[in-house]
């Protein structure tokens, strides 16, 4: 009896410990980003970092302005929103309200598959098909543009947006729809006059989580957006994002150099952006529950 109590005590403590660990990991992420990033901000102020127009980390004199990178991330994300949000919402409605039986199952499986495809693979496909296609259509010197990034990332955000929106639509009480239909509304009217309003907070949360995914995405962006650190003016020019900068340059930096610390500083900015997006999405989701 005694032995069993001891065993149970140990197991409970171990389980408690593994629960605590996730706090530790978040704290570790914070400390390491801040520790390395802080060394950077001692030399260069946050304001010059964010508003600087030139990213020349290894030329002499070096310049650390991430405005082009921030705008690069923003334009790709904006494009991805335009591509994916309307399509995903329509798709979610189609799956939960219109499609039936076999088609519904196939669609759901297809979306799950799309979510499972690694981003290098999508990047490669974008590189071999989409990039040459855009180059020919718009008669550009290169097809590696913000637009190609937007389209590919839009595709990658779709599974997230569709599944969460679908949950939100399914959570709308059946009586709403039945009420609308009883009043003589067609199914289409019930959808866009009644159901969408009830499901809106969930749909907004879904879109925001999709956006969070787009901003954080790295490999596909690095492969198809051309990686030129210039302030973008149109969708048809190469851009470079925050994530791609970290992944592409970290391998080549000297440990302890300003360049090394600057990439951690970019990490801080990225962390803050995604944190805000996720918290806002969470707020919308909780409002939905109430």
């Amino acid at each position, binding site marked *: 009896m005694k032995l069993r109590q001891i065993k149970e005590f140990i197991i409970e403590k171990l389980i408690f410990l593994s629960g605590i660990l996730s706090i530790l990991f978040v704290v570790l992420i914070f400390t390491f980003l801040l520790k390395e990033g802080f060394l950077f901000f001692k030399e260069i102020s946050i304001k010059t970092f964010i508003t600087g127009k030139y990213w020349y980390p290894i030329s002499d004199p070096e310049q650390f302005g991430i405005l082009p990178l921030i705008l690069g991330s923003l334009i790709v994300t904006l494009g991805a929103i335009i591509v994916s949000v309307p399509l995903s919402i329509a798709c979610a409605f189609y799956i939960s309200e219109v499609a039936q039986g076999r088609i519904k199952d196939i669609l759901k499986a297809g979306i799950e598959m799309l979510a499972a495809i690694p981003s290098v693979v999508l990047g490669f496909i974008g590189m071999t098909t989409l990039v040459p296609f855009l180059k020919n259509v718009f008669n550009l010197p290169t097809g590696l543009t913000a637009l190609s990034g937007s389209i590919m990332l839009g595709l990658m955000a779709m599974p997230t947006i569709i599944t969460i929106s679908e949950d939100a639509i399914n959570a709308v009480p059946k009586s709403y729809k039945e009420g609308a239909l009883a009043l003589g509304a067609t199914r289409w009217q019930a959808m866009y006059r009644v159901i969408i309003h009830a499901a809106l907070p969930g749909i907004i949360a879904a879109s925001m989580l999709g956006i969070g995914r787009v901003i954080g995405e790295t490999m596909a962006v690095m492969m198809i957006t051309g990686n030129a650190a210039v302030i973008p003016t149109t969708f048809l020019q190469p851009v470079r994002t925050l994530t791609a900068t970290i992944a592409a340059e970290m391998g080549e930096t000297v440990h302890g150099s300003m360049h090394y610390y600057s990439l951690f500083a970019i990490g801080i900015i990225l962390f803050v952006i995604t944190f805000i997006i*996720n918290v806002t999405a969470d707020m919308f989701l909780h409002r939905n529950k109430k």
Partner: protein
Amino acid sequence: MNKRILNKRLDGLFKVLGILTTVFGMLVLLVLFIDVFLDGASRLSLGFFTSFPSRKPEAAGILSAWVGTLWIMAVTAFIAIPLGIGSAIYLEEYAPKNRLTALIEISIANLAGVPSVIFGLLGLGLFVRWFNLDRSVLAGGLTLAILVLPVIILSTREALRAIPFSIREASYAVGATKWQTVYLQVLPAALGNIMTGVILAMSRAVGETAPLITIGALTYIAFLPQPPVILSGEFPFIRVGLQGLFDPFTALPIQIFNWVSRPQKGFSVNASAGIIVLLGITLAMNSIAVIVRYRQRKKTRW
């Protein structure tokens, strides 16, 4: 009257539009994959799996890449699965409703939303530099373990929550302790769904590239980590050791990325072949997950 006909038409239009876009989307995806497949299939041979990378595209293979992926996955699974399931059990079965629990919940939600490159930065700062693990299998595996941890926790919690409370009450009623209830009743009942989540999380880790590139995993490696079991002709005949954990590595997606960024046409064919292998692995894992879930659903009687 006219308006009613219009509305009816709109109704039908949405349905037709839905089916059309669905078919179109599926077709485009299919064509793209067939394209990659045709490109890469010619390179898929036994030699492709047993050769190291090379400067000559025809001679290059993915030996170091798939062995590296296997090593990393072993480390990731070893760390993330027990930790993830453990914290899910804590949160669902044990945790009191207090500040600390709320803090854990927020941390997990946060970890789940952090971009994967940032995990790379953490891995670089913590494992590569601070623990001085260098760019080793262990550093890569630990980095990916933290990355998939929230995924495993969230799916396991979902699985535990689906077990009706009456099962726990029945177990207590016949005198079982808390842990006996969890271990003998709740976990077995939730096992199928837990497995599904774990497999999906691991399949995500297989394709993850950005954090590994950020911690500085090498792209050109012409040797393998020391195997855990070595057979030899001398006395103990078998040597078991985990020295390989500290060897440098490359992984399948990194190798593909490396080939993609080379200009010669031959390497792009290699990349296609590598992608067939990578997609094969991830889709196989996903199918297994779907099958496990399906069987669990059939078994469930509440």
